[in-house]
């Protein structure tokens, strides 16, 4: 087994390490580049950085797909994510609605824009932040979103409303199917755990195959929603969208915030009989 591990090491690497590198490139290289080019008047540079960031996200989903053939369960429940991120994961990563909601927040908040080049309030991630001395195009990016964009976003949302519950339903069915097979095995083995474990193993393997297919479909959904948004928006709109997304991702892994969060002693509920 050890030998197998070493030979695999040459051609493959732990996903955890991949993710860590991926995140650091996002945080330390691509996000600063995008921030920089947003203030830079050159649209070519901005376009390049938008494309790089988009490609970075797409390559991450590609890597998730590749790794799923090794062990989908670890990707569905990633231990490399912190306690702040984990509750927001849906089938191993962000919910696809998160992307459409972010784009909606830009569209819906257009009324809040102040028509002033030097002091523009732009909504990123639901909160107003100020961009001083930004190019006019960035400041006005969401001033009047096109009808075509609105229609495309409507279509994407409509598709998601159909596909998200269908995926959730497939997870339930896969689990129900496993239970059904396991019970048969259990009864067949008359409750003898050792024997049951072997046969149940086969049933779990069948279910995991379905989980791989589900995970690939969930990633396909996330990937295609991202691609749709980038292709439907202008480079300025896309830049603000990706900035919001990247800042959210980086923010959830901010060491100061995470340590503060871990130390937080304010309970979320009011226990009727607090446990000792």
């Amino acid at each position, binding site marked *: 087994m050890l030998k197998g*591990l070493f030979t695999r090491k040459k*051609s*493959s690497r732990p*996903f955890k390490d991949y993710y860590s590198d991926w995140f650091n490139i996002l945080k330390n290289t691509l996000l600063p580049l995008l921030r920089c080019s947003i203030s830079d008047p050159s649209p070519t540079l901005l376009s390049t950085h938008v494309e790089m960031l988009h490609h970075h996200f797409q390559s991450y989903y*590609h890597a998730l797909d*590749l*790794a799923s053939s*090794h*062990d989908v*369960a*670890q*990707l*569905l*429940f990633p*231990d490399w994510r912190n*306690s702040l991120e*984990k*509750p927001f994961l*849906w089938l191993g990563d962000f*919910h696809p*609605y*998160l992307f*459409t909601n*972010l784009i909606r927040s830009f569209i819906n908040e257009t009324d809040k824009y102040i028509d002033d080049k030097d002091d523009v309030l732009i909504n990123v*991630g*639901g*909160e107003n932040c100020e*961009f001083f001395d930004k190019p006019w195009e960035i400041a006005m990016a969401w001033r009047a979103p096109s009808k075509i964009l609105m229609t495309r976003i409507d279509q994407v949302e409509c598709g998601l409303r159909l596909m*998200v519950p269908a995926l*959730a339903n497939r997870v339930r069915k896969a*689990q129900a199917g*496993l*239970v059904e097979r*396991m*019970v*048969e095995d*259990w*009864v067949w083995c*008359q409750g003898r*755990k050792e024997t*049951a*474990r072997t046969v149940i*193993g086969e049933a*779990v393997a069948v*279910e*995991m195959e379905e989980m791989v297919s589900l995970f690939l479909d969930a990633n396909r959904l996330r990937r295609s929603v991202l691609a749709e948004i980038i292709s439907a928006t202008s480079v300025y709109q896309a830049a603000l969208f990706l900035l919001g*997304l990247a*800042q*959210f991702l980086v*923010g*959830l892994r*901010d060491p*100061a915030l995470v340590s503060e*969060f871990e130390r937080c*002693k304010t309970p*979320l*509920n009011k*226990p009727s009989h*607090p*446990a000792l």
Partner: protein
Amino acid sequence: MKGGSSQLLQNICEDSDSEEREQDEGMAMARRVTDEYGDEVDDMREKFQCLVLHKHEKAKRGEDLSREKHSLWRQELKNRAERLEKQLKTRWELEELIEEQLNRFRAHYNRAMVRTLPKDVAQLLMPNWAPPQELASLTWLGDWRPSAMLDLVRGLARSSLSSSLLSDSVGNEKLLSQLIHDTRIEEAVIDEEMAEIQATCILHISFTPMSNRSVGSALGCIQSEFKKIERVITKAQNLRFKALELVVKKVLSKTDAAEFLVAFEGIQDAIHQLAANQRLQKGPVTVSVKALGCS
């Protein structure tokens, strides 16, 4: 007449041969005979006494035998009653054990008993004690999927070994189907609530380095999002216990409930062991560098 009485006595004597006849009965008969025939049978008395004595001896032997048989019969009755009592006790014990087990689940699923901190939420949804494959194969929001528990009951009912399960009542099978149907709907509703939080978190939690936000204000937004998630988890836990309690108390007989609880634990344990082995064998999940290309 004498001959008649003598015949009668003889008959009595012959009758007394019958070991089944009680001694009291013989004596009563002899007394009746003496009362009836008075002095006329005086001369017969000696013979009679002789006969009575003779009969007495025979009756005594018969009495021993019948007493023995009777006591044997009584003993047998007693043994059977004891066995019945033992069975009853076992049933009561079974009922108690089932109740105990249910109480354990009640305490486990009762979120109101536990003080939940923000950092506990991730642990509730993806508990460390469960290997990833166990989480992927059976869980929903951190624990057994309620409808899967009910699927387990239905599976047991359909399998031949437990033919008694649900077979006594068509109504119970209907009840179970209804329960599964309703539970699935409730799961879907809770799924939607969770999806809503996961979909809008980016709007409620903001990280904007350009504004002068402190960690504290971001933490406030996170706290309020995590409160929502905690409420969803509470609903999920309540649904789990409701499904378990209903199926054990309303759908299954005591024996079937016990069988279900045994299978429930056994299968969970088998899955846990299996997933732990799998995790060890596979090691940390890897990605092929070659396939990744330059990225």
